[in-house]
Structure formats: structure tokens, C-alpha cells
């Protein structure tokens, strides 16, 4: 069965947003800094709601923050 892999551009987007810190992003999305770090490192896939919140912080559509592919 193919494995679902979700990648994200959060690190790059934080840099482009004036080197926004993980803590600042965490505060704006109402999660802990550890959760932001885990999402960035691909250790945790956020819920749809949190994914939308993150995209909203950067003012981008969801697909420009997260991408999805299937791996065999």
C-alpha cells in the first residue's frame, strides 16, 4: 500500500516572514513551539484545522504551505 507523505514549506516561509520564530508561529496558531518544530521536521502531520491556521498566518493557500505525495 502506498505511503502518504506530507511535506511543508514552513521553515522557508518563516524566513521570508522576517525570520518569524517557531514560538511566534506557535502563539499565532495556538499550539506549542514543540508542535511547530515537529510539523516542520515532518514528525507530525497537523489536523486540517491547524494546517489552515498555519497557511492563514502566512496569507497563502494551503497547497503552497503543504504538499502531498504517495510513496510506494
Amino acid at each position, binding site marked *: 500500500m502506498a505511503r502518504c507523505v506530507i511535506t511543508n514549506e514552513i521553515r522557508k516561509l518563516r524566513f521570508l516572514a522576517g525570520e518569524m520564530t517557531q514560538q511566534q508561529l506557535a502563539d499565532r496558531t*495556538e499550539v*506549542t513551539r514543540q508542535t511547530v518544530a*515537529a510539523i516542520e521536521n515532518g514528525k*507530525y502531520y*497537523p489536523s486540517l484545522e491547524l494546517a489552515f491556521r498555519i497557511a492563514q498566518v502566512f496569507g497563502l493557500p494551503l497547497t503552497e504551505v503543504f504538499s502531498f505525495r504517495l510513496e510506494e
Partner: protein
Amino acid sequence: MEQKEKQILASIIGSVLTLGAYSLYVYHKHIAANPAVIDDFKFWGKAFLILIPVGIAVQIVIHIIFAIVNKIATGEDIPTVDDERDKLIELKSIRISHWLFTLGFFLAMGSQALGMRPWVMFAVLLGSGFLASVIAEAARISFYRRGH
């Protein structure tokens, strides 16, 4: 190591020390003096009823001490709110804990079905409850570390 992982580790150490110290206390105060008490239901009832609030109190004290030491060492406050990842990890660890305790419960009842002495049932219940708690906490650390 994340703050949460350290907090969980402190909690595990607290649980081990609490049960260890309490078991030694109960052994020396009651069982060593009168070994026959080990099959007394009243003795086990009291032992369980005292252990539960003592365990909760120790965990609260450990949490407070950890928060103070952590603040002094890192300058960071412990997060007061659990987010979706914390809740998901907690649910997964609770599931592990329930399965382990259920297994222990069946073993405890099995011991009685096989005609073993009553203390075996209580010891298995106590042991499985303790192991379920410690393994579930260790699983939480694992989920935080390797992701899920």
C-alpha cells in the same frame, strides 16, 4: 530532549520511587510483623486506598518542583495548555495503558480461577496497574521523540 519529555521522565521516576517506597513501608510495617495479613482482603483494600491519593499527591509535588527547576534552568514556563498533538499522544498512550491493565486484570482473575492465594490477584492487579502506567508514559516519550 523536549520539555514534555523531561516532564514525563520526572513523572515516571516519581511513580517508581513512590511505589518502591510505599511497598517497602507496607512490607516492614505490616507484612514482616504478621505474614498472615497478606491474604487479608481488608489489608489490601487499605493498601490500595492509601496508595492512590499518595501517588496523586507525589505527582502534584513532582510537577511543581519540575516547573520551578525548569524555570530556573531554562527560563521557560511549562505550557499550560495541551494542543492537538499533546492530546493525540495522550490518547494513544491511554489506549496502551488500558490494554496492559486489561491484560493484568485477566491474569489476576486467572490466578483465582486456578486456585491461587488471594494475594497473587492483588499483587498482579497492583503490578499491572503500575506497569500500564509506566509503559504508557514511556510510550508518550517515544511518540514525542520519533513522531507519529
